[in-house]
């Protein structure tokens, strides 16, 4: 065959040592491998053909009369569940920091008996301190002005308690 000769001549020109090596197939296969391969392939193809595709299976399931009621119930439960979980996700409980202060006050006043008195007192004092501190910061007073204010306005007993 012309191609074989061409290939050999081409090889002899480029790689004389390689051209001298006898071409042989060193790999082997298990006994009867090529006799059995066509059957193995046919078997695999038959198996693949038997396996119904998921959409075909679903279609068959839906159109069969004996399953219609079960499918309808399943779909209804699925949709109800979907809406229920999505409603909770889309309308979550309001965050504490999103509530208006007046709303909280109203709720606390209406349900005062449910709260621990000491806890309420503690929180009120803390809020008072914070609001006082922020009011002082906003005024941007100098130390001297604060001293003057304390000397003029505070009574001696208070100064003694705070400074000593």
């Amino acid at each position: 065959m012309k191609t074989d000769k061409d290939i050999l001549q081409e090889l002899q020109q480029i790689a004389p040592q390689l051209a001298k090596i006898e071409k042989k197939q060193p790999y082997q296969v298990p006994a009867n491998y090529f006799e059995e391969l066509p059957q193995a392939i046919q078997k695999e193809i038959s198996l693949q053909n038997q396996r119904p595709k998921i959409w075909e299976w679903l279609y068959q399931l839906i159109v069969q009369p004996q399953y219609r009621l079960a499918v309808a119930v399943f779909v209804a439960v699925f949709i109800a569940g979907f809406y229920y979980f999505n409603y909770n996700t889309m309308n979550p409980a309001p965050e504490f920091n999103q509530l208006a202060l007046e709303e909280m006050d109203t709720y606390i006043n209406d349900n005062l008996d449910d709260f621990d008195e000491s806890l309420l007192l503690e929180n009120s004092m803390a809020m008072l301190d914070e609001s006082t501190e922020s009011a002082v910061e906003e005024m941007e007073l100098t130390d001297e002005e604060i001293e003057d204010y304390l000397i003029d306005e505070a009574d001696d007993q208070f100064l003694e308690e705070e400074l000593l």
Partner: protein
Amino acid sequence: MSEIDDKSLLAKFRNPDTQHYAFNLLVRKYQEKLYWHVRRMVIEHEDANDVIQNVLIKVWKNLGNFREGSKLYTWLYRIATNESLTFLNKKKKKFFAPIDDDESDLSNRLKADPFFDGDEVTLKLKAAIHALPEKQQLVFNMRYYDEMTYEDISDVLGTSVGALKASYHHAVKKIEKFLKDD
């Protein structure tokens, strides 16, 4: 039994009554060539068996779309080549590193392989081929072992004849050097 020509085989495949029979004939006609083409790339029989099964199932699924203007055997080789490369890439990813790059590793694997029966020269030739880049291995194998024309290799790999000649030339030179250096 004389081999059926590809045109008659395809005609039988297109007839639903003789489709399975025609496919069986196709498998018997081409299985060995395709198997050895795959085996030279993936080396081990178990891997080659997995790949050849995938190849032939793909052929079954797609033979109906085969255009008669092309050569059937180059189309089959193309599927076998792509499946072999896909298999090798998956194997590389699975082991997180290039495999079989080391010639001594390949020699050891082949020596331990019960389905390898080659002498020292053959072992060295296999190691030299395996040290080539995958594309050069494919070109070399198809030209050296399968004695395919550059035109047919071009049909399989989708590369120009000129580029294939250069690739084969480089591959052969590298193998010659590998053999001489030892």
